Structure formats: structure tokens, C-alpha cells
């Protein structure tokens, strides 16, 4: 079975209406279907690994959004399931993120290490 690397770059695209990030959701589904899959969070998607993301409180007329996206929890669940979640250190630093801001269990990678990571996977899907 092919080793898959899902590279997630685009962040917060339609997440409110979807109640999640569609690529993380897809990754989770593929893992559940037996895929050998890892995730690389890069560019703005490093923010998906920030603790305490809170998208609650939306209301349109009398329609309250009772189940907002909880992307930090989605990432945590994937880590618990054994999905390796890599995060690009420079991308996090540029965005003002410190270790205290980030979830536990992430795998840090430097930009210069990405070509090797890509080489180690048979399928590389950049979303």
C-alpha cells in the first residue's frame, strides 16, 4: 500500500459552513479506510495546530450554529489515531506561533527537510 503525504496549505476555506476543514476530513476518512497517510501542515495551515481555536457564536436569524468547526480537536483526534502530523517550523514562527500556542504530538520539520519527507512518500497530494 502506498505511503501518502497530504500537504495542507489553504486554511479556513469554507470551514464554517463545512464544520471542519474538508482536506483534514478527507484525510481522516482515508485513514479510517486503511490508508497509510501523513499530513504536512504548511503556510497558513500551520494555524490548524493552534490550541483553543473557537468558532462558536454564529447566528443567522434564529438559526444558531450549534456545532461550529473545532479544527484543533480534529487535529488532535488524528494524532491519537496514529496519523503523523508534520508542521513547518519557519511557517509557524513567521506567524508568531510559539511552542506554547501549539498542540502536543506534532512533528516539527524545517523547510529544508521537506524534499526528503516528500521523497519518503509514494503519493504526495498538495491541497
Amino acid at each position, binding site marked *: 500500500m502506498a505511503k501518502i503525504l497530504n500537504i495542507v496549505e489553504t486554511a479556513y*476555506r469554507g470551514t464554517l*459552513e*463545512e*464544520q471542519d476543514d474538508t482536506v483534514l476530513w478527507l484525510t481522516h476518512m482515508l485513514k479510517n479506510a486503511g490508508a497509510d497517510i501523513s499530513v504536512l501542515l504548511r503556510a497558513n495551515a500551520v494555524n490548524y495546530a493552534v490550541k483553543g481555536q473557537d468558532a462558536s457564536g454564529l447566528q443567522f436569524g434564529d438559526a444558531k450554529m450549534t456545532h461550529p468547526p473545532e479544527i484543533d480537536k*480534529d487535529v488532535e483526534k488524528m494524532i491519537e489515531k496514529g496519523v503523523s502530523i508534520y508542521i513547518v517550523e519557519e511557517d509557524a514562527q513567521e506567524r508568531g506561533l510559539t511552542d506554547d500556542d501549539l498542540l502536543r504530538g506534532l512533528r516539527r520539520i524545517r523547510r529544508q527537510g521537506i524534499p526528503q519527507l516528500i521523497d519518503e512518500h509514494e503519493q504526495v497530494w498538495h491541497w
Partner: protein
Amino acid sequence: MASGKTITVAIMDAPYESANSTTALRIVQSALQKGHNVTVFAYEGAVNLTMKAQAPHPNPVKGTNVEQEAHPTTKDWVSSLFKLAKDKGAKLDWVNCGLCVDERGAGDWVEGPRRGGPKDFLDASNASNATLVIPTK
């Protein structure tokens, strides 16, 4: 209470694809809540926001069924905004661009919106206190 003021908002993004759609609906919500009239010109992909056939779905990742997941649909959000307008004595005029509807097959929509074209947007803008264009990328 109705303020007598009107805001026109043009939107272009398809549902579930962009943060813009939710922001636009938040702005409409805030305006109606304050009693302002709102005209929405839904251009291109945004005409899909109001499609009647939209249905909530369960979430197999979380193991929730349809009821537990309470997945929102944009058509329901728009319907709620029409109800809010009525409650506030304000007018929500939602114009779906007709040619955009045709090419997308998006003609069967919830109660409230009407079919129109660019001239409706221009007329609304000229008659409004403020116009905001929210484009797509």
C-alpha cells in the same frame, strides 16, 4: 425597528467554498438586526446559496447521524435571515443573477429570493446608503 437605511451587498462565492459567504451572511445579519434594509446581489457561484435541494448530512468521521451533526445549510441560513427581516420590519431583497442560475442549474430555490440581473444591482446601489462588493479570487 426599521431604520429606513439600505445596504447593498454583492457576493460571488459558491456555498461551502469560501469564508466570504459566511462573512457576507454575518454582515446581512448585523444590518437586519439593526433594522436596515438589505439588498443582496448573488452573482455567479453565489446563486447556489439558496438551492432548495440542499440537505444536511451525517458525519462518518465523528460517527454522528444527521440530527446529532446539525449540519447547517446555506439555504436555511438565508431563510432565517428573511424571517429576521420580517420580524424587524426591514426588507431583505435577495436577487439571484438569472444567467448565472441557468448555467448552474440553480433555479429551484427557497422562498424569498427573486431572479434579476446587473441592472437590479445598479438600481439597488444607486438607491442605497452603502454598497459593498465582496469578490471572489
